[in-house]
């Protein structure tokens, strides 16, 4: 028997709200229901083009911009409803979700959309038709970014991921099946329903479905993840997700993976020039560490300070103070530090002076200064500060899993960026600028829009 405490998840199937019979998921306090899946309705047959294959990209941009306006106004109350339910499933506090929802529209602004089209694809012409290219032997050929069939496994740690996925999916003109994660069961559908309210029955609207199934459920994934139905699996995050997805990858069914990532910060000795520079660096370091209360991959967890242990301690003390400040995408209070981490930290406290700890376990911020990076994964507004003699030494701590490296002062990026890139890093930013990736730049080492398209030649 179902109880009234269960959260009800809405599905969108080909642009329309789906009212299938509810199925129960989750355990105890995280229980929810979602409509039973009709697998046939989740694929767009290859015997016919997708609904939006021939819609001019200018029209799609217009629709996205209007959707953005509608999201900003939320006249239908769809975002408000989603937000209300998100509070029950998301690890993020309500105020952070609220602020994140309030700016979802930003992903739908015209300049940003064209930045993606222009920088990633070299212009809209190749989306709308065949781009003539001259070959070395003076022959000509034509090439086109053809709409793909995509199944997206999205991450739920930041609502912007759903917005970004809808935008990219729409710009491709292809068909898109979004699989909802249990930590964000509502944002994607709220966006799609808002779009449907703006333009009911629009081909782009009909090109989207967003549904839940339990990640890894073979009865669903072994059926859907086939080249007969989709070209590419666009998978975000989670090692288990990516490993699970790999089983299905094969000829004709490709994986586009936004791998799980982690981020670090490098603080140059210039931070110690004056109390003002130190305050600036600590505040910027705190901003980067607390992005989505440290739930995002761009959130810095290890910060290397060029200086003595005493310098590192001065920075750490200030940083700890600044971690407890509410920002656009973080709250003053974060999650309480998990019991297992508390113990590890208690032990480190007893190993002074090699280790020093600032802050408590209440989620308002905690900083550990250690002679080298700690073995555990700092999480929930926790930063590990490590003193180094030269910033160049920190390259050894960057690797293929390191996404964003924030550097203070920004001028020091130049001397470090090649070495960091060589180690595997994908973004080098001025400290404080880790949050919010500008549209039109690469993401995780590639241009997403370019990877999502099917490139077809006429030779």
């Amino acid at each position: 028997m179902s109880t009234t405490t269960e959260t009800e998840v809405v599905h969108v199937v080909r642009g329309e709200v789906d009212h299938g019979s509810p199925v129960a998921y989750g355990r105890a306090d995280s229980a929810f229901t979602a409509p039973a899946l009709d697998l046939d309705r989740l694929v767009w047959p290859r015997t016919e083009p997708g609904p939006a294959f021939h819609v001019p990209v200018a029209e799609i941009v217009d629709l996205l911009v209007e959707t953005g306006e509608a999201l900003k106004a939320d006249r239908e109350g769809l975002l408000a409803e989603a937000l209300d339910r998100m509070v029950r499933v998301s690890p993020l506090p309500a105020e952070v979700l609220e602020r994140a929802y309030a700016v979802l529209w930003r992903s739908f602004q015209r300049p940003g959309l064209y930045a993606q089209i222009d920088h990633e694809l070299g212009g809209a012409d190749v989306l709308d038709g065949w781009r003539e290219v001259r070959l070395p032997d003076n022959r000509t050929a034509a090439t086109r970014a053809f709409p793909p069939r995509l199944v997206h496994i999205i991450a739920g740690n930041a609502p912007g991921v759903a917005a970004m996925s809808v935008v990219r999916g729409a710009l491709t003109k292809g068909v898109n099946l979004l699989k909802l994660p249990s930590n964000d069961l509502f944002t994607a559908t709220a966006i799609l329903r808002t779009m449907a309210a703006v333009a009911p029955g629009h081909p782009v609207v009909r090109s989207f479905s967003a549904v839940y199934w339990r990640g890894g459920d073979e009865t669903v994934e072994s059926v859907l993840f086939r080249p007969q139905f989709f070209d590419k699996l666009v998978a975000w995050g989670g090692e288990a997700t990516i490993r699970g997805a790999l089983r299905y990858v094969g000829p004709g069914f490709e994986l586009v993976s936004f791998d799980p990532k982690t981020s670090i910060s490098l603080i140059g000795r210039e931070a110690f020039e004056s109390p003002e520079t130190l305050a600036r660096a600590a505040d910027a370091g705190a901003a980067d560490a607390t992005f989505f209360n440290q739930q995002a991959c761009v959130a810095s967890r290890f910060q290397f300070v060029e200086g003595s242990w005493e310098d590192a301690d001065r920075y750490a003390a200030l940083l700890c103070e600044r971690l407890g400040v509410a920002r656009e995408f973080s709250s003053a209070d974060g999650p309480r530090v998990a019991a297992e981490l508390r113990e590890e930290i208690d032990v480190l406290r007893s190993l002074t002076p090699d280790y020093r700890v600032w802050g408590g376990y209440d989620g308002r911020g905690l900083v550990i200064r250690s002679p080298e990076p700690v073995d555990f994964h700092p999480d929930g507004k926790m930063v590990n500060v490590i003193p180094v003699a030269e910033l160049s030494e920190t390259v050894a701590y960057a690797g293929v899993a390191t996404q964003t490296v924030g550097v203070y002062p920004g001028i020091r990026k130049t001397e470090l960026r090649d070495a960091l890139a060589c180690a595997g890093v994908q973004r080098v930013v001025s400290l404080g600028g880790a949050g919010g990736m500008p549209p039109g730049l690469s993401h995780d080492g590639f241009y997403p829009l370019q990877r999502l398209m099917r490139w077809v030649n006429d030779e």
Partner: protein
Amino acid sequence: MPSAREQLRALVRSGDTFDQPARDLRELQLEAAREAFTAHRERIPLLRTRATESGVHGIESPDDLVPLLFSHTSYKSYPLSFITGGRWDRLLRWYTTVSVVEPGDVDVEGVTDIDEWTDRVTAAGHRPYITSGTSGKVSFLNCDAGDLRFLHDILENLTCWPDPLPPEPTRRGYLLAPAGGPMRSIDGYRWHADVFARPGETRLLTEDPMRVSELMSSALLRRRMAEGTATPQEISSFEAASGAREEELGAAVAQIVDDIAAHRTEPLLIAGMNNQQFTLIQALRAQGVPDGSLHPDTLVLSGGGNKNGVLPDDYQQQFAAFYDGVRRVRSYGMTELQGSCLACESGNYHVPPWVIPLVLDEPGEKLLNTEQGVVEGRFAFLDVSLEGRWGGLISGDRVLVDFSPCDCGRAGPAVLPDIRRYGDLGGEDKITCAATLDSYVRGMIHG
């Protein structure tokens, strides 16, 4: 008047260890908890920190114990660099914060590897039992000489409880384990062989002792890979060495299998972790040894979780079928606990009297214990018998504990047979793009 802890420990030889009146036992346990807290708070800094932080200054009720429980990670909370960098004095200093070992107790002068470090701690009258988790980092759980004697008492008096096996050396022994090493299961198997097997007639998987450094080698290699300093040749050599080791052990198991098949009409002692036991059973069946055909005085010891699901779901049923008619030790326990919860005639696992079971909610914060009835939650406990370390711990297991008297007629509490790890229960389908470096690199290599 012996102390409450001594009275509880003495129950191991009483003949009715698991049949104490519930109310009396609870009072004695609470008194013993006070004694343990007072004694350990003096000597174990981590417990002292915890007590100060949580404001618990005395034990009035089991609720007061909850904030004092450690998680299993406490015992592997040392920075790995202490081992990779050979900082044995710092590792010792860490050890003195989580155990009763004092810095002056152990001489670490000239130690060159983790095995030598472990030997030095042992030489100082302590036994650092290790457990290895999936992370590759090992836990060090300290026991002192009294704890080891108590463990030995348990096996001598309670093996095969509720119908304890007389301590007579009448069996041919097979230990699917190395000759030695700081693991409680290895010591346990050897002691069982001393008590229950004929002298000089025990076969081992290998005459080499288990080396902690070898057990940790994959973790250390992974660390070097994450740092980008491991070479492809190094990775390849490591994998080849692991393969060779596996083959060697496979050959040893094959010899043991032949020997068991030849002597199966005699009383035997067969001890091994579940995965080795499973391999053994498969091989014996392949040799034509039918289920239920071993001598009825045979003693079988098995244990260990099904980490990463390497065994089929029905392995317990397969064990029961193959070993039908022999004496088996059936228990629920973990290295962290002195003396397991033993299965009664009704198949429920009775909590030994020196262990206070604490059933917590899933986050491990709220005590759910009742006087009567069945409670579902996370298994935690205070083992008041422990001298070498604080015995309060929170496990990862989801259990059902019956606080009412058991069907077998004894007073509770008893852990019911449906035991699972929270980690295996699922229900989480949360996807985030934030990774740990370790999981990323491990994934890349072993995928």
